[in-house]
């Protein structure tokens, strides 16, 4: 695209800069439009939950902002390569510019403004309606997201190498599968029984590390029924790659009947479980024999 401009390399810098800016503005406009309108609707992690939607919006925003920056550097690089290339064996000196001055100041000001505004946007998303954008927040979350019902507490227990789930509101029943009702704020309390794991449900927009002895809370509000994939995202030993399962988002009515079935089916195990707690310090502590 720029190759036809190369022969016009002028001794003064002005036409180069003007040309470069025009190319950049045109390409950036196209690029940003493509990112927002073509890529945006398909941008992971999609819109299955409020949290995923927040993350998707931030991803689109970052991609849209990154595009002009990427193009600016690439275009300047490509333009310089094409326009200022020295062919042949002759060693000719370039224009001795030492730099400094207004361009440096402008660059510093602009980049600082961009990154500070990014941090502000990210912070705003953290404190926005989802209160934490689906990430694990430790035992003291920023705030509880608003909902018509209080959050449904579900405990996620990582262990080598499986996920299990406990529902304190339903007699502390523990299951191998997770199901949650749509449209309600769920408080996931993530913990571990042995080493570090990380609970990652990409469609839900949730990632929270499971750390032994720690209660890591992540909020999520799924928007519609469906299923989601859970994977472990922190290396946890031999079967780390196999620590995946599928979870369900059900309508409230379907959830009620599902959890009732689970209570019955797991009754034998539930009787033996320790009382519900936000974290466990399981025996044997060390060097089991």
């Amino acid at each position, binding site marked *: 695209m720029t190759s036809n401009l190369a022969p016009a390399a002028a001794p003064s*810098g002005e036409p180069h800069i003007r040309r470069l800016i025009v190319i950049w503005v045109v390409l950036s406009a196209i690029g940003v439009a493509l990112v927002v309108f073509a890529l945006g609707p398909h941008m*992971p*992690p999609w819109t299955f939950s409020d*949290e*995923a939607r927040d*993350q998707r919006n931030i*991803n689109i925003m*970052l991609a849209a902002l990154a595009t002009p*920056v*990427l193009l600016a*550097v690439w275009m*300047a*690089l490509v333009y*310089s*390569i094409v326009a*200022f*290339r*020295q062919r042949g064996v002759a*060693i*000719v*000196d370039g224009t001795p*510019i*030492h*730099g*400094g001055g207004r361009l440096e100041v402008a660059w510093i000001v602009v*980049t*600082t403004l961009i*990154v*500070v505004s*990014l*941090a502000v946007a*990210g*912070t705003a998303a*953290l404190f926005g309606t989802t209160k934490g954008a*689906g*990430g*694990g*927040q*430790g035992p*003291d*979350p*920023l705030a509880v997201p608003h909902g018509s019902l209080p959050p449904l507490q579900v405990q996620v227990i990582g262990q080598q190498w499986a996920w299990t789930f406990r529902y304190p509101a339903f007699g502390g029943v523990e299951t191998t599968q997770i199901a949650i009702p749509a449209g309600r704020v769920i408080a996931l309390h993530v913990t571990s029984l042995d*080493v570090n794991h*990380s609970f*990652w449900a*990409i469609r839900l927009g949730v990632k929270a*590390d499971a*750390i*032994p*002895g*720690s209660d890591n809370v*992540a909020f999520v509000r799924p928007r519609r029924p469906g299923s989601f*994939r859970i*994977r472990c995202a922190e*290396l946890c030993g*031999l079967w780390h*790659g196999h620590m995946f399962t599928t979870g369900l988002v059900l309508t409230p009515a379907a959830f009620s009947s599902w959890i009732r079935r689970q209570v019955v089916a797991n009754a034998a195990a539930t009787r033996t479980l320790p009382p519900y707690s936000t974290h466990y310090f399981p025996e044997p*502590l*060390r*060097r089991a024999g």
Partner: protein
Amino acid sequence: MSDVAFEQHAPRPAAAPPWWRRLIGFNLLAASALGIGGWFLGHWVGTRITIGMDSQLGTDQNDIATFMGFLFAVSGWLIGLGFLNYPLGRMLGRPPSLREKEEEGPGRYFRLCTDHKVVGMQYFVTILLFFLIAGLNAMFIRAELLTPKEKLWNANQYLSLVGLHGTMMLMMMSAAILGPFANYFVPIMIGARRMAFPRLESLSFWLVPPAGLILLSAVALGGFPTGWTGYAPLANTARAGMDAYLFAFALIGLSMTIVGANMLATVLTMRAPGMTWTRLPIFVWGVICTSVLMVLAAPVLFATLSMVALDRTADTSFFLASAGGSPFLYTNLFWFFGHPEVYILALPGFGVVLEILPVFSRKPLWGYRLAVAGMLGVTLLSFMVWQHHLFVSGMNADLRPFYMLTTELISVPTGFIFLNGLGTLWRGRIRFTVPMLFAMAFFSNFLIGGLSGVFLSDVPSDVSTHGSYFVMAHFHYTIMGGLVFALFAATYYWLPKMTGLRFNETLAKIHFWGMFVFFNFTFAPLFVAGMLGMPRRVSVYSSSLQGINDFVSVSAFLLGLSMLVFLINLVYSTVFARVPAEANPWHSRGLEFQLPTPIPVRNFERTPVIESGPYEYGVPGAPPVAALGRPAVAGGGGSSP
């Protein structure tokens, strides 16, 4: 020791000793023998002293014996190389001396040698070797990922591959540029005859081979499952291969601390007259910043790994939550080292490319002060961002905006480097030499790496990308796309000066284009894989991602082939073709290129007086960097202040 000092300039005895006689002494041979013997002795001692110890019973895995074995092996290795002779002599009151260690002949490459140029070459070969081993492991990883289920290697072997690749790369790449090129060229660039602490310099190198070999020994000890991050408490429960990881990485931490201290002292004190801070080559600034990070971060790594080692051997509970410890302690300490480590990898790359761009643009470095400010800014900020690795770990939720801000702020000083690079190219006379191609590719790659880093620094975006292939692609773009491209730029730029031999340019260009194209083909799709939900370090993934992964694997193999091209070129150019290189093949103003090839042992015949900056290309009336007078000859006189 002091008496042999006077014999240095005595003529060599006419009758050379028989060849086998020269193999006896403090050299690699003795070091290997004592190292291997030390392993067995240490293991035996460790087994003896642990008899009756509860903690080591019934595991078939005596961690104390393993550590003792490693400790004795490294001690034997260093004794065999003669590292104890001098300090012991000094402890007995012998005077300081440097005499016996700077010599000629190929034998010096295989023993303790205090010539910084020899250490540079030793580093280059060693780092290259371990780089190739680690790269081969990457090929095996990609071979497994051709299929979405475990097929070639089982889960344990796969994790060990991941750990070996990651740890080996991190260990070796930490010194990839500082080891070979800073050791070789920093003293020359600042007009010094040697480093501030030549013996420590040699020690910093000779710790690297045992570290690499000990890490490889993890294979014989069952591998280790933790990847390069070595997260506790998984590390507490892991098999004996973990001990190898801990010991090897700690050795590298030690080596890094020594390198950093040595470089700092050298640059601060040994600069030639007239070498003001604003005339310092930008590469040296990169080395200074890296050294600061090394000196402050690597000891924390050493202490952290010691804690894990204590947990594994002495049954402490630093990282066991049920026994009063905390896994967060590990993650915080590790990333306090780990994030500066990232810049330990990146900053020398900045230095190299900014050093090379002016030479092949025939222009002064654009915004020298800005570049220095950028590197210093990165250095400072890099200690304040580590918790962005823990955004979703359950850290204090209120801290996240602060670390989000600091992390994003670090892109401001990093951005300076881009402005410097582009400003230097602008209206230059750009020559497409191989080093220049690598340097320009650095900018393209590192740009993508940096911009993807912004996603990871933003908490909401990090929730979906943390721990995924997105992160993996991100840091390969910064480390491989950044550091390794800079490493090859430096190799093509400086190796002709170091060896006195030219590279075959056709093969070099094939290497570059293969590497550039297939590097991008390999890692760009992995951003997508990560975004779509593929976690790191798994050998089982969704079958819908197989297309992406197969494409990536094939590209990775071709990327590996491009490395083979480099290797072939290296062997061909240095063993077979042996075309001599000119003293200044690039018409560079750099002080190192004003010296004859090969560079004499004492570098400069007399201390140079620096009269101008190194990048004054096209500046009317700019004098040469230094007036060197008549060509220096080897073995010329002592110091003149």
